[in-house]
C-alpha cells in the first residue's frame, strides 16, 4: 500500500511543481493571450495535483492532507521529475519544457486511464481532458517557433539541447515503477518511451529542429528525491506562508 502511495505522490509532485513554475509567468507572458494560456495550464495542473496528493495522503494513512503534502515537505521528500523543476528561463525554455512534459503526461495518463486502481483511473480520465489541450497547444507553438524566424529557431534549438538530458528520467524505471507496472496499476515505461520519442521527433522535424542524438547522457534522481538546486528555492517561495504561519488558512 505504501508503494502505491509513493507512486501517486510522484504524479502529484510533477503536477504541483510544474504548476508552481508556470504560475511564475503570471503577468509576464510574451502576449496577453499567452499569459492567460500559461496560467490556465498552471491552474489545470494544480487541480490535478490536488487530486493526486489527496489520494496519496489517504493511501499513506497517516492523516496527511493535500496541503500538508504540498507545503510541509522538504526538497528531498519530493519525487517529481527533474524536468519540471527547471527554471522558466526564456519563453523557449518554458515552451520546450512544457512540450516534453505534456507529451509524456498525455501518454502516461492515457495508460493510467485503464489502471487496475479505480481511483487512479478516475483521476487520469479527468486529467487527460485537460492535458489533451496542453499537448496540442505546446506542440503547435514548438512548430511555429521552431519554423519561425532565425532567432526563434535558434532559441528553440538551444532550449531543446539544454533540456534534453532531463527527458530520460521519464522512462528510467526504478523498483517502484516496476512494482506498479507488475500490478497493472501503471504502464511499462519502455512502451511509453517509444510513443513519446515518435511524437516528439515528428513535431521537431516539422519544426525544422534537430533531435539530440540517441543515447545521449541523461540526468536522473528526482524520482528518488535527489534534486537540482532549483527545487529548494522554488519550495522556499511556495511554502513560505505555511512555514512562517503553520496551519494558517483563509
Amino acid at each position: 500500500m505504501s508503494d502505491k502511495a509513493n507512486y501517486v505522490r510522484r504524479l502529484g509532485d510533477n503536477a504541483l511543481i510544474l504548476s508552481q513554475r508556470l504560475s511564475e509567468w503570471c503577468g509576464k507572458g510574451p502576449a496577453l493571450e499567452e499569459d492567460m494560456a500559461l496560467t490556465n495550464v498552471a491552474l489545470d495542473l494544480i487541480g490535478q495535483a490536488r487530486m493526486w496528493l489527496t489520494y496519496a495522503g489517504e493511501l499513506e494513512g497517516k492523516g496527511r492532507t493535500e496541503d500538508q503534502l504540498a507545503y510541509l515537505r522538504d526538497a528531498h521528500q519530493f519525487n517529481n521529475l527533474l524536468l519540471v523543476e527547471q527554471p522558466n528561463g526564456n519563453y523557449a525554455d518554458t515552451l520546450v519544457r512544457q512540450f516534453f512534459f505534456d507529451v509524456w503526461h498525455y501518454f502516461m495518463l492515457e495508460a493510467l486511464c485503464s489502471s487496475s486502481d479505480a481511483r487512479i483511473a478516475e483521476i487520469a480520465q479527468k486529467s487527460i481532458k485537460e492535458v489533451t489541450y496542453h499537448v496540442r497547444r505546446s506542440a503547435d507553438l514548438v512548430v511555429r517557433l521552431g519554423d519561425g524566424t532565425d532567432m526563434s529557431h535558434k532559441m528553440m534549438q538551444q532550449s531543446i539541447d539544454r533540456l534534453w538530458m532531463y527527458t530520460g528520467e521519464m522512462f528510467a524505471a526504478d523498483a517502484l515503477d516496476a512494482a506498479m507496472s507488475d500490478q497493472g496499476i501503471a504502464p511499462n515505461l519502455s512502451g511509453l518511451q517509444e510513443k513519446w520519442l515518435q511524437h516528439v521527433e515528428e513535431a521537431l522535424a516539422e519544426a525544422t529542429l534537430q533531435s539530440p542524438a540517441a543515447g545521449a547522457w541523461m540526468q536522473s534522481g528526482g524520482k528518488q528525491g535527489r534534486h537540482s538546486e532549483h527545487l529548494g528555492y522554488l519550495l522556499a517561495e511556495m511554502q513560505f506562508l505555511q512555514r512562517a504561519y503553520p496551519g494558517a488558512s483563509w
Partner: protein
Amino acid sequence: MSNEWPLWEVFIRSQHGLAHKHVGSIHAPDGEMAINNARDVYTRRNEGVGIWVVRAADIVSSSPGDKVPLFEPANNKVYRHPTFFPMPEEVKNL
C-alpha cells in the same frame, strides 16, 4: 508585436445558447491560434461549446450616422408591429 498579430473578434455559443454571441476580441497570427487564444481567454469557466473567430478587418459595421435611415422607419409605422391582433386564450406567452 501587435502589428504582426491582427485583431480577431470572438463569438462563443454558450452551453444552452442557440446562437454565437460576441464576447470580445484577441490578437493572433492566424485562425488556428486565434481559436486557441480565444479558448484560453474566453472559455475558462465552461462558457461555451463552440467558438467562431473572425478577423476584425473582415467585419463590416453600420455606422452610428446611419442610425436614423436604418432604424427610424420601424418606429413610426405602427402597422409594422403586430399589436392589433387579439390572441386566442390557448396561446400563452407569445
